[in-house]
């Protein structure tokens, strides 16, 4: 029996959440593949609903689609599931919990059921460091939303203008001719 098969036979004993280096050793391949399918589930349904609502408040629908249409909530779960380590996930989980706790105290309902204006008020408290763990949560969450949005198809091709093959370079292109700024 080679080592790869031997490792694979241990999987059943370890349960579902195999320590990452072991998981990679079992799935040995010279170039590990990055998950492009469904994200690993890291949120409870309630957390996911709140992440969805808050991401849309960060980057709302206007004359172009907002965060939800751009798939930002899925992107965030993907990043936290496949990308983040436990401490980084905790920053998000704790911030979501603090926002929910404050929402119940101030508005008598969980944040996901709060109005858009109330959600904005809760995010503002977090931003200003007036919730426990609020400031680091807001900074991390805002980065995730912005990155997810401006790297999405909607962010790249609708909110901004995408030049897949510019062909030419003009280093003095009139700003007046720019309708939407160019995606990088």
């Amino acid at each position, binding site marked *: 029996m080679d080592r790869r098969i031997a490792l694979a036979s241990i999987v059943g004993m370890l349960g579902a959440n195999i320590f*990452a*280096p072991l998981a*990679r050793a079992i799935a040995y391949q*010279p*170039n*590990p593949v*990055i*998950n*492009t399918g469904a994200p690993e589930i890291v949120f409870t349904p309630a957390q996911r609903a709140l992440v969805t609502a808050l991401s849309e*408040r*960060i*980057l*709302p629908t*206007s004359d172009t689609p907002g965060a939800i249409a751009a798939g930002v909530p899925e*992107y965030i779960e*993907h*990043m936290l599931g*496949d*990308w*983040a*380590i436990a401490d980084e996930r905790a920053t998000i989980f704790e911030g979501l919990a603090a926002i929910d706790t404050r929402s119940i105290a101030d508005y008598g309902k969980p944040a996901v059921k709060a109005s858009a204006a109330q959600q*904005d008020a809760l*995010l503002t408290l977090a*931003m200003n460091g007036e919730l426990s763990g609020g400031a680091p949560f807001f900074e991390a969450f*805002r980065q995730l939303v912005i*990155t*997810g949005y401006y*790297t*999405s*198809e909607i*962010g*790249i*091709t609708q*909110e901004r203008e*995408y*030049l*897949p*093959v*510019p*062909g*030419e*370079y*003009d*280093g*003095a*292109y*009139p*700003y*007046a001719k*720019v309708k*939407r*700024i*160019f*995606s*990088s």
Partner: protein
Amino acid sequence: MAATDRFDAIVIGSGVSGGWAAKELTEKGLRVLMVDRGRMVEHGEDYPFDGKSAYEIPARGKMPAALAKSDYFALNGWVSPATQPFFINDRLNPYDYDAPNKFNWVRPSVVGGKSLTWGRWSFRWSQADFEANKREGVGTDWPIRYDDVAPWYSYVENYIGVSGGRENLPYLPDSEFMPPFPMNVAEKWLKERLESEFPGRKLINARLSNITEDKPEQNRTRCQKRAQCDRGCSFGAYFSTQAVTLPAARATGRLTLRSDSWVTNLEYDPAQKRVTGVRMVDANTGQVEVVQARMVFLCASAMSSLHILLNSRPAGSERSYFHSNGALGSAVMDHIFRVGVAGDIPGMSEFVEYGRRPGGVYVPRFRNLEAEDLPFKRGYGFQGAAGRQASAPKGFGLSMKHGMREYGPWRFTMSAFGECLPYDDNRVMLNHSKTDRFGTPLLRFDVRFRDNEIRMMDDALEQGMLMLRKAGLTNVTGGRGKHVPGEAIHEMGGARMGHDPATSVLNKWNQAHDAANLFITDGAQMASVSCVNPSLTFMAMTARAADHAVKQMRAGLI
């Protein structure tokens, strides 16, 4: 493939140097076997992320941090999911160093080597670069001078296509240029300001192995201004083995290319002083084979070539056949790196950039060109560019979203590449107590920067910020990170060229003192490293060595 004499030459490695060796040797009529440890990558069809937008790249182009740390640690965070397929997995292919003297050894894992992912900045060395060791009494003298290489620079430049502007600078000779990528309006302003504030210092067009005119005879199309070169370019707009030298070698009908073949060592006859075989392991099957040819071009990349040479030793001995004089593995160098400065360029807000250039502007070396009272030897140059990013308003919501629809100011950034001196005790060796998956002792690095390099980095930071401030930029920032050797990915030396067989490994034709039929034409040959990017010099030296080797073979001397 049986061990036969069906090949006139074996080329080990298929990157910048190996590809040139294969092209030149096959075009001169030799039957050539080119081997690479990496997997096959065919031009165009094996560039999975060529032309893809960010949303089509796994994880939107962000490498999972844990994976980068565990499996691609030499790249120190620079690997992305779009370039990962071209790089080796460090976890599965370890190397060795003592913790205080870390070395980031960046290695490719594909046919074409680093020619697929390189930075493409291309400069000639100057006469002063070749003379520096002798003039200063540092290291060992080069046995060649600028005039020995100049015609070969022209030869490779005309073939590959190098874009740039003529400047007539004695310390940075012009290449055979295609038109440069133009400066943008902010860079033109900076050029005028910087050159008037600092007489003698220049800000010039980037010199790049990206073509600005079509080369239809090579099926190559000029750069399309996408700025995604390191994913592979189906237009063939930048120099790579796949786009340029491999098609030429294949067209002769005399090339055999074998991927997935790890060369572990050379077999050697000390009596005849000849390399008698190349031992390789099939990476997929583990099958071992020794292939013979009249001559060998070792172009495996500087440190890998040293690894192969160090591991070429008599049975039962830990000492290489090529280690007779102690020079092998010593005086390993890299460029200084990790000094960056930036500032906002005022005005010109009515202009933006259209398209994405593959490079920007260059500030050539200005230190120690003449006798100067500075606390360090040699010098450095800056590579940079000006551009405008989206504004970054604070907060969240509609005001932020719409605020990000405006461009911010022009911002100029540049970073330094500087010359590291050759120190004989900066060396690589074998660690006989640890072996890789092919049974080869690991390559062990003992390389660190010394005072000269540290002082040069300090000076680059100080001068970089001074230049931007005096030119009139605002919000000038600068930083000097800890530079781990190897990070510039310009690791060189260890089998230097020299006059004296007692202190060097190669003669002035890249030919091993200890084996007339062995030529080493990658970065291992370097006796010093200048401050300019090295690949163009490897190409010219490879073409020159191949010409000499074939003449010697025809004369019956090899």
